[in-house]
């Protein structure tokens, strides 16, 4: 069963071919990084225009790379929930057209469910039930993953997503986008290697709250205020120390809360997905803490951390197997909830 996945929820135009939800035959991602860097972030209208320009080429490349044609494709899956509305629409319009023209089933996928499948795709041994932390520029969620089809939302961010916080601080410190060739999260990760993570004691918002929700806007303000204070006082600005201490605060909150969730549900496995799961410090602290507690922790390979269509195709296959399709009336839901 060959599923074509399409993903256009934010600033990556992606298409992939995945066989039986397990084998990636191709995974094409056209990033808009170079286009968007002069704006310091994602501009929805500009991103949506680029999706329309790229989508056909990206789908064709996914087929060519896998040495397949549309004749070989059994179904098409597309991110239709959660993302920028104008961007989601392009992927959904493309997927519907392919589904209609080829007479193959169409499956709308929740983008976050896609991220959950990024780990299941790379680690078939991932046990159920487990707790999944999905953390990226768009969301920060702790989900209890029961089996193939049910999710329970245990906690989410009340304001900024963790990845958004990384990007905004990098932008504020003027160390990303405009003058570098990678996103804010990666710049802070790299810079932190040369910094002292205990140099500044930034707040760990909601780390002791009784629930599993997150809040990162206060941490962002704290870093910005400290930075401005130092400028006013004419003190030096040790960027690597700021980056490392800031990153440590985020990592601390993410790991602590995810472990609370695992303990609450008494599960022995944690899955971490989304763009921020590429962060080297987050990986290290999770590995170390989970090892101590006898919990297995899983990360996707770096190629499946950020937005991609292979994860969408894999999630699509799971729905297909259960006979769950979307009709041609499939609509987009930019703020669709996941789980309950």
């Amino acid at each position: 069963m060959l599923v074509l996945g399409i993903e256009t929820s934010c600033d990556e135009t992606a298409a992939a071919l995945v066989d039986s939800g397990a084998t990636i035959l191709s995974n094409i991602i056209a990033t808009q990084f170079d286009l968007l860097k002069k704006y310091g972030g994602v501009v929805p209208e500009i991103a949506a225009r680029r999706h329309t320009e790229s989508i056909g080429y990206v789908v064709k490349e996914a087929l060519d790379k896998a040495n397949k044609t549309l004749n070989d494709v059994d179904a098409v899956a597309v991110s239709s929930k959660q993302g920028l509305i104008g961007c989601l629409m392009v992927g959904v319009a493309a997927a519907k057209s392919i589904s209609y023209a080829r007479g193959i089933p169409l499956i709308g996928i929740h983008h976050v469910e896609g991220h959950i499948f990024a780990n299941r795709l790379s680690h078939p041994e991932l046990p159920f039930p487990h707790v999944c932390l999905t953390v990226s520029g768009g969301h920060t969620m702790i989900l209890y993953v029961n089996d193939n089809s049910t999710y329970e939302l245990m906690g989410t961010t009340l304001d900024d997503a963790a990845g958004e916080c990384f990007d905004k601080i990098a932008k504020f410190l003027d160390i990303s986008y405009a003058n570098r060739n990678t996103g804010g999260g990666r710049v802070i990760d790299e810079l932190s290697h040369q910094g002292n993570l205990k140099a500044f004691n930034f707040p760990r918002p909601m780390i002791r709250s009784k629930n599993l929700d997150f809040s990162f806007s206060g941490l962002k303000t704290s870093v910005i205020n400290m930075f401005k204070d130092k400028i006013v006082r004419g003190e030096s600005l040790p960027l690597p120390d700021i980056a490392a201490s800031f990153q440590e605060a985020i990592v601390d909150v993410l790991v602590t809360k995810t472990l609370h969730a695992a303990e609450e549900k008494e599960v022995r496995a944690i899955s971490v997905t989304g763009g921020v799961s590429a962060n080297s410090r987050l990986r290290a602290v999770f590995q170390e803490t989970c090892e101590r507690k006898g919990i297995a922790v899983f990360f996707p390979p770096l190629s499946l951390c950020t937005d991609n269509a292979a994860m969408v195709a894999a999630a699509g296959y799971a729905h297909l197997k259960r006979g769950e399709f979307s009709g041609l009336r499939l609509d987009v839901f930019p703020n669709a909830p996941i789980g309950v």
Partner: protein
Amino acid sequence: MLKGVGLTLNKVQGIGVGLGPGSWTGIRVGVTVGKMLAYASEKPLCGVPSLEALAWSARDHSLPVYAVISVGVGDAVYAARYNVKNDEMSRVGDYFIGDIKGLAALITEPCVLVGTGAASYTEKITGESGIKIKAIEANPGGAAVAFLAARRLARGESDDALSLTPLYLKESTAKVFVNKYKP
């Protein structure tokens, strides 16, 4: 629609798609559907400017035709002038984007004005210049797009499905801002 006329996509020999200008999201969805349908069904594709499809509904008049589509901001409009000769339409001059006053300055002879809200545009333009204008209320329709596309396809012309993009005529607001303030 195909079901209504007892056809399937198999019987369709070519696909025409309205390129805009118009609502940015609207034309983006339309063009994406057009190009991906053509790609997936391996049928020839032809993009038709929406102003041309609109002007087509005024083809029976011998006067010059101004097709007008609202930008959706203030009284700004997209417009273009077409001349009709022997059932053939050709655009004269560049596409226009601006307010009604600006459009009025371009209209120097009696003509037909076609679009949604044609009567109110006509009233304003005649008020500015006193020129006699015939208003025709119309939308750029699928039938006009299909007809014009079929004509181009019959002449052996077509567009590449993968590279076809909408005719926005305007840069996004963010791009305008950045180009203006961050040279």
